[in-house]
């Protein structure tokens, strides 16, 4: 594990608090993009359960597409890179940061710029989607808790947009 003091994040570490919602930078994570035709073979290669329905999650594993998964594990975790196998394991730990929205109004803040109907987004669901023009992976971790994985360079814009939306809540 590397020294935390050497890390930088594109958004402030301090959470933004509003009545009904907080917007905070999530802890660093180990992340992999996993690709394979055969979910079983992938599960065997990386040693984690692999959900097969798009939008489904299993532990830290989310199915984003018919042959695509996102695995999010605590920082420092390692998995097999699947050398030589008909699959793809790519370390994307630092490609994104996580914004965590928590509170009863979190859904309203996200819905301010996300065109999907988030009331139909189930707890435990994870999908790649969009907020205004910015792509994100949205994970509903609890009834009132949402994790947003967003590429680093888009994170300041997204955080600012979410904070702005939260500041307008009535």
């Amino acid at each position, binding site marked *: 594990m590397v020294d935390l003091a050497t890390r930088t994040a594109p958004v402030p570490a301090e959470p933004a608090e509003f009545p009904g919602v907080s917007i905070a930078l999530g802890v660093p994570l180990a992340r992999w993009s996993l690709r394979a035709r055969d979910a079983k073979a992938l599960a065997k290669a990386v040693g984690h359960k692999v959900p097969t329905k798009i939008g489904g999650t299993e532990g830290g594993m989310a199915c984003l597409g018919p042959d695509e998964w996102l695995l999010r594990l605590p920082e420092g975790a390692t998995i097999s890179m699947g050398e030589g196998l008909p699959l793809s394991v790519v370390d994307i730990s630092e490609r994104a940061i996580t914004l965590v929205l928590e509170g009863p109004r979190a859904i309203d803040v996200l819905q301010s710029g996300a065109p*999907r109907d988030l009331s139909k987004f189930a707890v435990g669901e994870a999908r790649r989607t969009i907020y205004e023009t910015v792509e994100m992976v949205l994970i509903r971790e609890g009834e009132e808790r949402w994790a947003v994985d967003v590429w680093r360079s888009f994170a300041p814009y997204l955080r600012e947009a979410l904070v702005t939306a939260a500041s307008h809540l009535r």
Partner: protein
Amino acid sequence: MILIHCPYCEQTLPELEFAYAGEAHIARPADPSALSDEEWEKYLFIRANPRGRHNERWRHVHGCGRFFNAVRDTATDNFELTYKAGEPRK
């Protein structure tokens, strides 16, 4: 903003998650070098561009990432159906 059904996600979702990708069922020739200039020109540039029913490609670019096919009426913008890439023309 139209709604589009992604045949992979099996969800009907806002257009903003998708990107248009041109006419469907125009397969790249297996051996382009065997094609005459006229045949290659047809593959590269000639498109049906109908008023009405159009087989076309979309990509769920901000979703599952898959290219798929759709039948859309170019006059009304109404989608008749969508189907997975590789399935026969509908």
